[in-house]
């Protein structure tokens, strides 16, 4: 395990703003990030779909379906659309909603037949840190099928390619000036 941990944390230079550890606790992935905004606002950005749709997913993704009933037992459903047009549907159920400090939900990525390919227990905690908010995201894979890695890989390709395109485009614009 330790070799694996080292590999992951060393794999991404330039992303130090988020701390991430893998497999070292009861969680498969723990990430922390400090946002320069008051806790109430960050919490709202996570639980009000008018806000969630603006940021959920990497750059270039849109969320044509974004529904959330942020209370214990409430459902969430997000269909993410990658820049290449692929849609990645996800549904889930909130287990805990403690405003403005804590969210727990199980999110399931769905295949074309609405079957879950993997279930991820997600815990989000919002801690006040002076004027800022320290967000901790903890992920625990409950169930995963053999499809899961390809799914995630596809999703990642969908956005890195579009970023590459953007880079090329910007370079061209630069060149034309």
């Amino acid at each position: 395990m330790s070799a694996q941990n080292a590999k992951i944390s060393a794999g991404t230079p330039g992303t130090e703003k988020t701390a991430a550890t893998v497999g070292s606790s009861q969680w498969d992935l723990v990430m922390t990030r400090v946002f320069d905004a008051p806790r109430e606002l960050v919490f709202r950005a996570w639980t009000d779909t008018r806000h969630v749709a603006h940021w959920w997913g990497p750059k270039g993704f849109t969320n044509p379906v974004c529904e959330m009933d942020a209370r214990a037992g409430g459902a969430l459903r997000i269909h993410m659309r990658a820049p290449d047009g692929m849609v990645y549907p996800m549904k889930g159920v909130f287990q805990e909603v403690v405003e403005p400090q804590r969210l727990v939900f199980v999110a399931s990525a769905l295949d074309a037949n609405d079957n879950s390919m993997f279930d991820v227990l997600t815990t989000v905690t919002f801690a006040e840190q002076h004027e800022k908010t320290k967000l901790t995201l903890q992920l625990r894979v409950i169930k995963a099928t053999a499809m899961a890695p390809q799914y995630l890989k596809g999703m990642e390709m969908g956005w890195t390619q579009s970023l590459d395109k953007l880079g090329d485009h910007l370079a061209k614009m630069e060149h034309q000036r």
Partner: protein
Amino acid sequence: MQDRLSTTFGALADPTRRAILTRLASGEASVTELAGPFAMSMPAISKHLKVLERAGLIARGREAQWRPCRLRAGPLQDVAGWVEHYRRFWEASFDRLDEYLQELREQSSGRSDSRKRKKEKTHVRSKRKD
């Protein structure tokens, strides 16, 4: 299709089994050695080892008496790859959330002349001194 990844994640879900793997990362060990740090019966440890073995996370020697356990990295790499994709997904989402929160703040707190951002929103009506 009984898939390897689920089995791997299942095997990793237990703290004792993770501790055993961590121990094995520094070299092979016998069941007795592995049981050492745990207040657990041998049969209990054996059960954990069986789960790990079935998940392909460890291999056990065939020598009758001391059957050394050693780590097998394959399934762990699958998990690491999986988690790495997920990590990047969230990293990228956090970047967007960060930007979006700043937009929200600029919209709502035109009064407080909050902070200078790279991307000033043109429609924010505020008297900025910068």
